[in-house]
């Protein structure tokens, strides 16, 4: 299935309908109203307090990392970290959510929930990378953008939309890796990338299972059912075509072996950059826009399209 998707799309040959049919069959086969304990396990793994965070991956992957700070406007938001790193003979820009490991770090980093300044810093760094032809790697791990009055007043919505537009616009290759919690718009703001990759035990969802249960089931206790219904695991998302690839984690989960998890991401980054860097910047951008255009399932004149 993933292989089918990975085939280069030749002009005039459209595999999308084939994929859609198979995809739907898979969904039907997989679909089960009974609670699948595995799904909630994934949610817990994705939020595991010892799971590697952005700084852990930076530590293992990029020893010479140079952090760059500030949005040049209002503040430096520690919930998003960004900077330059040397990687396989070239520079890359690494940007990611950082939840904070201990209590003090969590408070300082606002549990990885960015305020508008975080997204504006990310945009500044992505534009800097673009100026010098530096590819961008984003590491995504947030429960969501911070829901606070001051954050709203400083334009949380515009900060996210502009971050999306910034990523749509870049001429350089972009790779996003969902390493833990991919929570709603606050995660997507860093994930409009040429390649969106997900760790096996990460989750990526439009809303947290708890909030979804509270709204739709009127009962937060139904979070397990909501998680299953939202189809937020890496396997689900790969089936839905929402992510380009899923990376296996070390046995037991990434938290068992940070170094091994980092090395898995590093290899995937290498492969993806190899492909992306060989493309013309304009072609790469077209492909990115076209990829996101394909996101959606609807019927038109009776035909369901995917």
């Amino acid at each position, binding site marked *: 299935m993933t292989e089918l998707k990975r085939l280069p799309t030749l002009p005039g040959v459209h595999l999308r309908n084939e994929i859609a049919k198979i995809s739907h069959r898979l969904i039907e086969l997989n679909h089960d*109203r009974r609670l699948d304990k595995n799904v909630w396990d994934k949610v817990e793994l994705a939020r595991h307090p010892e799971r590697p965070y952005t700084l852990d991956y930076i530590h293992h992957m990029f020893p010479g990392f140079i952090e760059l700070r500030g949005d040049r406007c209002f503040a430096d938001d520690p919930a998003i970290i960004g900077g330059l790193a040397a990687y396989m003979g070239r520079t890359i820009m690494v940007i990611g959510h950082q939840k904070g490991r201990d209590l003090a770090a969590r408070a300082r980093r606002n549990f990885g929930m960015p305020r508008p300044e975080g997204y504006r810093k990310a945009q500044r760094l992505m534009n800097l990378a673009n100026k010098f032809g530096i590819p961008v790697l984003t590491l995504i791990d947030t429960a969501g953008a911070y829901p606070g009055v001051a*954050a709203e007043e400083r334009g949380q*919505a515009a900060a996210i*939309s502009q971050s999306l537009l910034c990523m749509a616009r870049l001429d350089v290759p972009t790779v996003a890796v969902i390493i833990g919690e991919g929570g709603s718009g606050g995660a997507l703001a860093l994930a409009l990338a040429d390649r969106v990759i997900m760790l096996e035990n990460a989750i990526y969802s439009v809303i947290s299972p708890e909030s979804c249960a509270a709204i739709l089931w*009127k009962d937060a206790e139904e979070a397990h059912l909501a998680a299953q219904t939202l189809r937020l695991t890496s396997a689900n998302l790969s089936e*839905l075509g929402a992510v380009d690839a899923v990376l296996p984690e070390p046995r037991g989960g990434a938290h068992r072996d940070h170094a091994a998890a980092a090395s898995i991401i590093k290899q995937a980054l290498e492969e993806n950059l190899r492909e992306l860097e060989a493309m013309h910047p304009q072609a790469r951008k077209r492909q990115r826009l076209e990829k996101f*255009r394909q*996101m959606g399932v609807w019927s038109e004149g009776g035909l369901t399209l995917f």
Partner: protein
Amino acid sequence: MAQKVSVDISRRNGDTGFRGAESCPACKQLLSTEELEANYKVCPHCNYHFRIGAAERVAQLADRGTWNEIAASLRSADPLRFFDLRPYPDRIEEAEYDTGLPEAMIAGTCRIHKMDTVLAVMDFGFMGGSMGSVVGEKFWRAVDAAIETRYPLVVVCASGGARMQEGIISLLQMAKTTCAVEMLGEAAVPFVSVLTDPTTGGVMASFATLADVVIAEPGSLLCFSGPRVIEQTIKEKLPADFGRAEKNLDHGQIDMIVSRPELKDRLVQVLGMLEGGVACAIGPLWEEEKSSPGRRGALAEAIDRIKALANPSRRSPKK
């Protein structure tokens, strides 16, 4: 691709559509339906803007008889086979029945005071104006139409955010619509958004705030996280003016607030201004006519010449 709009307003029975009389939620004055409709569903006593549906909005903005709907046959699928207390298709069917609309957005070409425009309008009555695959695809097609025809794009927003029932696919509509905005920007076609009560969540954090000019209706709630979510986080009651258009204006998030009776006029003024740039039109002219003299010609003459040369290629459809 284009067809006449087939919205049946009589079926609507949301909070904005019932007949007879109702009292203004703001000033409590009793208002007759005729009075209210004559004033664009705005309270003549206190300027309270009642929520209105997409069809009514189109009727208020488009010149009579000029609306040509596009992508009218798009319908939501159920990619997740989503089932909470009720299956997703049931909710869609109910929304269709309530609003007379096929989805939370309708799009089309029309004229606004004789100006050709691509217009997309959201309807909060259709599942809270939530954005799923169909809204995303309609937005993309509206952008496509705007690029092809070189008509400016106007989008009237009203949305509670992403449509949960489509899971990650609804979240990705934020990325999809943003990519469309980028294409529109590349083509330098003007884009104006009108934010109405309420515009929140994924719509607010994607195309709604990416327009060249952002207009809001008075009193509308405009935010990313809704008041209830924030109240749960900070365990405090928010003031009534949280996230309202007036606050957003002070905080630099929108360009202007326009009352509904003035909206049509104001839209045409803004679109006309955005279309009236001259200097960029010189670009292609110069490429072709680098040796052209005329540096000292009279201004009016030069402008006319430039416009005559440049505009046909800007305005005529590609095909």
